């Protein structure tokens, strides 16, 4: 199966790159920082450690996968490797999906590595739910980074666009709450701004609802809410894949 072979090559490349070392360094830094902060906390030291490690590792996993996807894809573009691959008897969809599958598997491996230290503070079941959520989140970020890398064809803009999308998606609930707050004046410009914010929110995934640190501190989430949050991620990843395929098929290499 050609897509599986491509995915394997992507995984092999990730293994031979600095990605595993960077992941290990992120875990070490997160554990070190948590240990330091717990020394100065007067209470909730375990909750503090768990929350800091979880928050840092979540951000690290997402940043590492986005940077890896962008650098790997743009290296192929710049080295004309992509043109060579396209000369093979493989459809463009197979090429794109195979590559994305490899990156998504990298995200799954990163999520598993980042979740492992959390077993020190939370139950295995809760950590497994957190890890599955992070794996889906990483796959979404991989799809976004691949889309932006193919579309923008430059490393810095591709990473900046992926990071911008991610940060905006994670902050959108807070932005909406500010826009719809009771202290805001009821004027036409304000209403227009609020509608604008709501419209942008429709185009973003609800990342504030997934991979919650609260699950590790206060117990696993409600099954319905958890399934709905993950379904939102899967749906948005599908949208990014469709947009990426659309762009890739139109691309004149």
């Amino acid at each position, binding site marked *: 199966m050609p897509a599986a072979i491509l995915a394997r090559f992507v995984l092999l490349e990730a293994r031979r790159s600095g990605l595993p070392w960077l992941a290990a360094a992120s875990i070490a830094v997160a554990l070190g920082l948590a240990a330091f*902060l*717990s020394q*100065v*906390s*007067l*209470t*909730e*030291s*375990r*909750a*503090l450690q768990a*929350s*800091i490690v*979880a*928050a840092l590792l*979540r*951000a690290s996993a997402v940043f590492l996968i986005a940077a890896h996807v962008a650098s790997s894809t743009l290296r192929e573009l710049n080295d004309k490797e992509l043109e060579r691959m396209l000369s093979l008897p493989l459809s463009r969809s197979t090429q794109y999906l195979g590559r994305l599958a490899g990156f998504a598997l990298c995200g799954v491996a990163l999520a598993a590595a980042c979740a492992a230290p959390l077993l020190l503070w939370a139950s295995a079941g809760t950590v497994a739910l957190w890890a599955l959520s992070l794996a889906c989140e990483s796959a979404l970020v991989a799809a976004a980074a691949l889309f932006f890398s193919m579309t923008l064809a430059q490393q810095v803009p591709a990473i900046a666009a992926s990071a911008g999308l991610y*940060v905006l998606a*994670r*902050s959108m*609930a*807070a*932005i909406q*709450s*500010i826009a719809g*707050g009771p202290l805001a004046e009821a004027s036409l410009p304000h209403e227009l701004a609020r509608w604008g914010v709501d419209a942008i929110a429709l185009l973003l995934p609800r*990342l*504030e609802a997934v991979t*919650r*640190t*609260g699950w590790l*501190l*206060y117990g696993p989430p409600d099954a319905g809410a958890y399934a709905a949050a993950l379904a939102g991620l899967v749906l948005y990843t599908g949208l990014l894949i469709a947009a990426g395929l659309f762009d890739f098929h139109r691309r004149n290499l």
Partner: protein
Amino acid sequence: MNRDARALACVPPGVWLALGLSLAAQLAWQGTRQPAPPAAADLPPPPPVQALRLASFGEPEAAARLVALYVQAFDLGGGNALPYKNLDYRRLTGWLRAILELDPRSEYPLFLAARVYAEVPDEARSRIALEFVYQEFLKDPNRRWPWLAHAALLAKHRLGDLALARRFAAAIDHYTTAEDVPVWAKQMEIFILEDMSELEAAKIMIGGLLAKGAIRDPAEARFLKQRLDELEARIARGTKR
């Protein structure tokens, strides 16, 4: 490390010297600029909760605890003989309230208010911290009663305000509905009225919390043990005199 790198001997002596000098200058410069611990006057007004939520990027639990550590550092370190005595408590309780709104299930702000900020030897400040604990208790009595129980003890023994202590004790009895609230807490008004020393009352309360498994955090258990020892030593000194 890099196969393509040339030998170290290929680097000109001037570049070696420049690297060494610039590194030494950086170390010397930073060595003379040790940051001072944040003073009471440095505590800024609390930001709006929505701003904190926005800055947390969807990690309110981690942000709440980091903000608690940030606030805790003000007017604490250095050669400060009486920590927190200069803090603006209105501002401080604003921060604690913002942290609680960020993560309502965190116990850190109530712990700081009841066991750290309310114990300063300044009656006005202590009352502000105790009132904060009372107001926040009303929002979630079944989870926050231990802090109000401690506030009742402080009101009786530190402030000598029996009416305030009874108000807090009565609130625990009146507003808590959970079955896991112990009998001694529900009947706290009785042992507020009894002629019991602060140490005895604190021992009953902390012992009760430990026995019930309510204090699981090692840092908190260590802190409470230290407080009990200090109380014991203070009372022993008072008896000798």
